[in-house]
C-alpha cells in the first residue's frame, strides 16, 4: 500500500446534530485502503448516522468528509456521491430493498446502470451473489415481502456487493443471521476483501466478526471516535470500552478465536 494514495475515507471535525441533540462533535477518522474497520458503540450513538454522512445522505452541520479522495458535499440536488457510482456499496440496517422488484432484479439493478452486460451473464452473476450471501437459489425469484427478515438482510447485502465496490458499508450485516450464516458471511467478506483490496466499514455488535475479520476497531464514545486495534482497545480504561470488551460475550469470542487459530492463550 503506497503512502501517497489517499485514504479510502478521511473525516475531519465532523459535527452532526438533530435539533439540539448533538450526535457527533468534532469527529476525526481515517480509514485506510484495504482494511476492514469495525464500528462499535452503544445503541443510538450515531453509527448509522456516521455511515449516512460518509455516503452523502446526511448533511453534516460542520466538518469535511472525503470518500476515495472525492470531497462529499451534501447540498441540494444530485448527491455528490453519484459520480462515485459503483465504487462504494451500502447495506442499510433495514435492508431497503426495492419492494416491487424480485431479489434477483434488486441485485441486477446496479449492474443494469453500468450497462453492457448481457442478460445471461447478469442472471448468472445475480445467482452467484445470491448464493454468496447464503440465500437459497430459489430466493432469486421472490419478492422482498416474501422473505424473512434475515433473508432480506442477505438480499440487501447481495445488492451492496453487486458491483464489487471498492468500499462497502455494512450496517449491522450479521444481526439477524444464524451463527453459521454469520460465520460464512465473515469468510466471504475476508475473501472478497483480500482479492479486491476491498475496504470494509462494518457497524457490528457481533464480537465474533470483530475478532475474526476486523483489522481495526472504531469505538463511538462521547460523540467522538476512537480507532485502534483490538489488542490496544482491550486495555483502554474508558468505562464503556472496558464493559464492552470484558463482558462474558467478549470473553467467549476471544476464546473461540484462540481455538480457531490454534494460538496458546
Amino acid at each position: 500500500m503506497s503512502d501517497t494514495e489517499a485514504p479510502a475515507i478521511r473525516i475531519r471535525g465532523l459535527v452532526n446534530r438533530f435539533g439540539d441533540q448533538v450526535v457527533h462533535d468534532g469527529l476525526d477518522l481515517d480509514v485506510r485502503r484495504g482494511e476492514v474497520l469495525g464500528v462499535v458503540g452503544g445503541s443510538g450513538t450515531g453509527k448509522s448516522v456516521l455511515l449516512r454522512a460518509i455516503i452523502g445522505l446526511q448533511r453534516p452541520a460542520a466538518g469535511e468528509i472525503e470518500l476515495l479522495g472525492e470531497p462529499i458535499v451534501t447540498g441540494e440536488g444530485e448527491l455528490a456521491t453519484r459520480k462515485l457510482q459503483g465504487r462504494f456499496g451500502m447495506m442499510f440496517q433495514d435492508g431497503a430493498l426495492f419492494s416491487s422488484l424480485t431479489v434477483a432484479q434488486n441485485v441486477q439493478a446496479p449492474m443494469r446502470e453500468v450497462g453492457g452486460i448481457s442478460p445471461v451473464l447478469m442472471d448468472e452473476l445475480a445467482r452467484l451473489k445470491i448464493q454468496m450471501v447464503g440465500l437459497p437459489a430459489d430466493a432469486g425469484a421472490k419478492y422482498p415481502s416474501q422473505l424473512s427478515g434475515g433473508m432480506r438482510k442477505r438480499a440487501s447485502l447481495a445488492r451492496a456487493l453487486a458491483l464489487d465496490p471498492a468500499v462497502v458499508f455494512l450496517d449491522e450485516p450479521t444481526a439477524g443471521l444464524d451463527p453459521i450464516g454469520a460465520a460464512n458471511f465473515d469468510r466471504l467478506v475476508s475473501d472478497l476483501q483480500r482479492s479486491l483490496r476491498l475496504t470494509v466499514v462494518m457497524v457490528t455488535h457481533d464480537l465474533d466478526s470483530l475478532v475474526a475479520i476486523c483489522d481495526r476497531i472504531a469505538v463511538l464514545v462521547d460523540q467522538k471516535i476512537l480507532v485502534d486495534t483490538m489488542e490496544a482497545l482491550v486495555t483502554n480504561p474508558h468505562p464503556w470500552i472496558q464493559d464492552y470488551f470484558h463482558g462474558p460475550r467478549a470473553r467467549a469470542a476471544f476464546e473461540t478465536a484462540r481455538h480457531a487459530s490454534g494460538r496458546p492463550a
Partner: protein
Amino acid sequence: MAVEASEHLNINVQGDRLRIGVAGAWTLTVAAGLDQRLRRVAGGAEGDADKQRARNVVIDAGGLTALDSAGAWVIGRTARSFQDAGAEISFEGLRDDFAALLNAAELGEPDVPIRPARVNPFVAVLAHAGEAVVSAALVGRDLLGFFGFTLVTIFGLLTFRRRLRGVAFINQIEATGLNAVPIVGLLCFLVGVVLAYMGALQLERFGAAILTVNLVGVSVLREIGVLLTAIIVAGRSGSAFTAQIGTMKVNQEVDAMETLGLSPIDVLVMPRLLALMVALPLLTFIGDILGLAGGALIAVMNLKMTISQFLTQLSLAVDFWDFGTGMIKAPIFAYVIALVGCHQGLKVSGSAESVGQRTTRSVVESIFIVIVLDAAFAVFFAELGI
C-alpha cells in the same frame, strides 16, 4: 498457433493442449466484454473439434492483477465447462487470494430459475379476465362483510361498550372537512356558474330565462352539490385513508396494534368513518350555498335580475325536500367512501407498490358506488314523489 490475443485474454492451441492466458484486471466490465468470447470457446460453438481435441487445458493466471467476483465467475465457469467435457484442467501462477475467490464463485445449483415463471400470453389474458371477475365478486363480499363489521362496531359505540378515539376523530374532521372547504366551495361555485350560464343561453330562446333559477336551484340542491362534494372527498380523503392505513400495514404497524390488544377498527377505521360522516354533510351544505351563489352571479350579470328577485324565484322553485334529498345522501356517501378507503387500506400487503394499487382502486370503487347509489336514490325519490 495463437487463436486470440488481447490485453486481457490470450488463447493458444497446440494439438490437444489449450492454453488460456488471463491478464490484467478482470473486473465486471472486462468480464462482461469477454464473456461471449469465452462462452464460445468453452461451448465449442466455433470449432467443436477444438474442444474435442482439448484434452489438456491450462489457464495461465500469472498476469492477473485484480479479480472481482464477476471475473472469477467467468473464468471459473470456463474452466468447469472444459472439465465437464472431460479435459484435464490446471491453473498456473494463480495467486492464493484469487484462488479463494475462484472457489467461492461457484454456483451450487446453477439451474434454479431466478425469474418468476412466465406463462403463455393467451392463457395469461384469459386467467387475468377470470381473476378480475372472481376478485370483483370477492371484493363485493369482503366489502359487505366489512360493512357489517363497522355496523356492529358503531352499535358498540352507541351502547357505550366501545370507546371512540376522540382526538383522532377531531383530527380527521379537520383533515377531511375543514381543509377541504376551499376546494369544495370553489368547484361548486364554478359549476353553479356554468350551469346557470348554459341554462340561460338555452332558456332565453323560449323567453323563459327566469326558469334558469329553477334549473340551478333544483339541480344544485338535489344532485350537483352532494355528488360533486362526494367525488372531491373520495379523491382527497378516501385515497388518503387507503394510503395511510396501507403504509401502516406495510410497516407492520397494524400487526403490532393487534398484538397490543388494540383493534385497528377502533383505532383507525372508526375515527375516519365517523369524522367523514360529519364532515361530508357540512361540506355538502357549503357546496350547495356556493353553487347557488354561482347561479345568482350569472342571474344578476346576464339576466339583469336583482338578488331579491333571484331569491323570490328560488323560493318558488324549490321546496325543503329538494334540499333534504341532497342532504340525506351526504352521510350515506360518506359512509361508502370511508368504508371503501379503509377496507382497501387494510387489504394492502407487503410492498409499496401495493399501496399505490389499492389507493387507485379505493378511489375508483368509491366513486363508482357513489354514482350507482345516486342513481338508485333518484329513482327511489321519484317513486316516493319527493
